[in-house]
């Protein structure tokens, strides 16, 4: 996927924050990653270290929090939680599900020094 550009997005946000809040280092960056976001977590971790080099967040740890996948079932009209994109509806067994959540890619917070 485009884990490199995601990390560049993270770096931009951190640099904006560093200007606003005047901090000199970042200890930890917590991100929330939805089940259906398509993000490859190993690749994100790797890209993170590379992209943060030379920035205020160099050496920071990246903590990833999983968010569940949610979908609307077109058969029983329930909003349900599913583990995998192609899982059947846990309520009615139906197979026509439209994702309504789980594509999140958010920076939750920064631990800064």
């Amino acid at each position, binding site marked *: 996927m485009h884990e490199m550009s995601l990390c560049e997005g993270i770096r931009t946000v951190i640099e904006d*924050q560093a200007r606003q809040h005047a901090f000199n280092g970042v200890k930890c960056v917590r991100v929330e990653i939805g089940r259906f976001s398509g993000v490859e977590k190993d690749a994100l971790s790797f890209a993170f270290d590379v992209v943060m080099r030379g920035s205020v967040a160099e050496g920071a740890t990246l903590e990833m929090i999983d968010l569940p996948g949610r979908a609307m079932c077109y058969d029983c009209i329930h909003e349900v939680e599913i583990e995998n994109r192609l899982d059947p509806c846990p309520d009615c067994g139906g197979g026509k599900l439209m994702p309504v959540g789980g594509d999140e890619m958010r920076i939750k917070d920064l631990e800064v020094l």
Partner: protein
Amino acid sequence: MSQERLIQLETDILAKNDRYAAANRAILADREILTLNFVSSPGSGKTTLLCKTIEALGDQPLAVIEGDQQTANDADRIRATGAKAVQVNTGKGCHLDGHMVGHAMEHLKLANNSMLFIENVGNLVCPAGFDLGEDAKVAILSVTEGEDKPLKYPDMFTASRMALLNKVDLAPYCDVDLDLYEENLRRVNPSIEIIRVSARTGEGMDVWLQWLRDRLAQKAKPEAAE
């Protein structure tokens, strides 16, 4: 004594892209320009289909933004039809983003109430996450790619409003089940619209052209009250 503190953010990682996309969308809405983002794997027939569509639309004002990692080949192919086109090379990038499209729009001198077609980089994964400011994504899936592609790469088809099932002229030669293509598309996106087309023979093109004209008509803002 530690000076550690926590800064709460809850910011989308792609927030910057989303801001560029929103700015593009506002301009395109104001100028009533129907904008479609064409996504697919390489070779499904995006450029061919765009050329045929442009020819069939005749004097409809339109412009094209071509995204590829390298070469200006596709923009040249589009210009050969007489349409305005600009090529964006993404280099290592695997997708177009809102910023690139905003720049390309400035180069194109778009006409009001026209159509803007954006051919994204051939890639079934990355372009799904990057909003460009379009009205809709149109996925192209050619019948030689395999019926299971929507299941293997669901995000792109979930994000698309329309799927063009292209190269149906080849169906008799490659043991494909067109109904299964449709079934799998609807499994990952129950509300997706599907048209079977052949850019080569012109099959299905009338339905596709009508869809485009209807979308353009919907794009017109209600007349301002007097």
